[in-house]
């Protein structure tokens, strides 16, 4: 049986996906590495990397990238430690969707 998440939790994952999609537009390997994580610890570690990326990206370009959703997401992963895989799946779906939307938004 799959975990059913709360509405706010879904929003956290969606917003995180948005942030990760934005980062992946520059640093695609970060998304690959997120996909490759195998445990909750690894996932959190990679999210920390992504947060640092987001901050440096925000300093370099004009538009700022919020890291708040990522911080909330780490709390969420700690809450559902046994089901971190399902959270990862949802984030991947949203991240890829946003990356595609950024790259091919003219269509």
């Amino acid at each position, binding site marked *: 049986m*799959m*975990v*059913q*998440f*709360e*509405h706010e939790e*879904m929003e956290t994952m*969606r917003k995180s996906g948005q942030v990760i999609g934005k980062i992946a537009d520059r640093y*695609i390997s970060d*998304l*690959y590495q997120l*996909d490759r994580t195998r445990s909750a610890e690894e996932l959190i570690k990679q999210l920390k990397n992504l947060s640092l990326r987001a901050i440096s990206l925000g300093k370099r370009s004009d538009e700022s990238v919020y890291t708040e959703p990522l911080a909330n997401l780490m709390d969420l992963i700690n809450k559902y430690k046994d089901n971190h*895989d*399902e959270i990862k*799946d*949802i984030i*991947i*779906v*949203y991240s*890829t*969707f946003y*990356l*595609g*939307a950024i*790259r*091919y938004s003219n*269509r």
Partner: protein
Amino acid sequence: MASKITISQYYDWWFDNALEFLGHLLEEVDVSLEWRNGIVFDPLDLDQIAQLVDNIERLIKFKLTYQKVGKDGSHEKANRAYLPTMHKGKYVNYLGKDTKVKQEITNYILNEKCEGKNSKMRICDFCMSYYFDEFNISQVSQTIYPVATGSLKSQCGVRKMETEYHACPTCAFLGSIAWLDDNPFTCDTDNLTNYILFPKVEDISKLHLIKDIIRDSVKQGKNSNVMEIYKGRNGLEYERYAKDEYSLLLSLFEQIMSIGYQIRSIGYQDEWICLGIKGTHPTYQTRYSYLSEIKIPNVKNLENIFRDIQKPYSNLVEKSFTKSLVTGKINNDLGRDNKYLMSKGIVMDDFKTFARAFRIRENCILTGINKELLYTLISQWRCNDGAV
């Protein structure tokens, strides 16, 4: 008044579907019949048999061929070569007989089937009844039973078992006319595989109700009979059809709903059988056929998805495409794979499979997904209250 004729059920996916189809054909020539663990009907007179054979012959011309448009724009009739109904350009078994012989066989099966046994009679491998092979149609090939082995021991891989099977005229007749039925099918022209779906229902009267709804919802097409027709930019009409079994099932549900039924009106039918027939390139003959079952774990959830996003296949899955991040070219192979994964995820209620389509592989990314539909789908699927 002669006594009623009974053909009892086989409890086998192929022959039960064929028997249901025979019942449907008999109903079309105004034979009163009952569905009772099989079909029970009054004997047919010669006019009715002539009419029945006429209908079957019309269906052979109609169902086993399609309109092929040549390079110069000419139209011609081409055979559906991938179906195992032909050998060296001719129809085999019952389908290949003359009208006169067809009438004789039909008359024999439906009216005067002789009972009793003597030493010259053989036993049918399917229904265990005794028969005479009067009409030379009893050798079992893939025409009669699509997953039958070939008859050459060295080629079919079965060496220690019997490779040749024999069927009585009734089974041979039923097996060969089943190809004329309106079974939902689709053809993936890239890897030459055909998928045909059958509902898996034990009770034949329930099967009849389901298949009547399916018959209403399928159309006639070259590569599929479950498809959406849309207008291209130049005003011409094109077909959009599924390329794998799960997508076919999704689009079948869409078609059923588009003519005003619901999933509950086919009794939440959750067990389906998928026959895959793979052809080879130069001749497009059957290479092998295989059978798989699809058991939808949560039909009610699927119904909710259909309620929230009316056409999950045509509007969400089919519109997606897969692009290379480096060159920007569309990758059709991965695109097909991703569509398969998305449909399979939705049908089997398996989010992990669905999410696999979104992973970036070979530097290719899935895109073209409608934002609103994706939000609705994921919230419906993974959120407590299902609200967007």
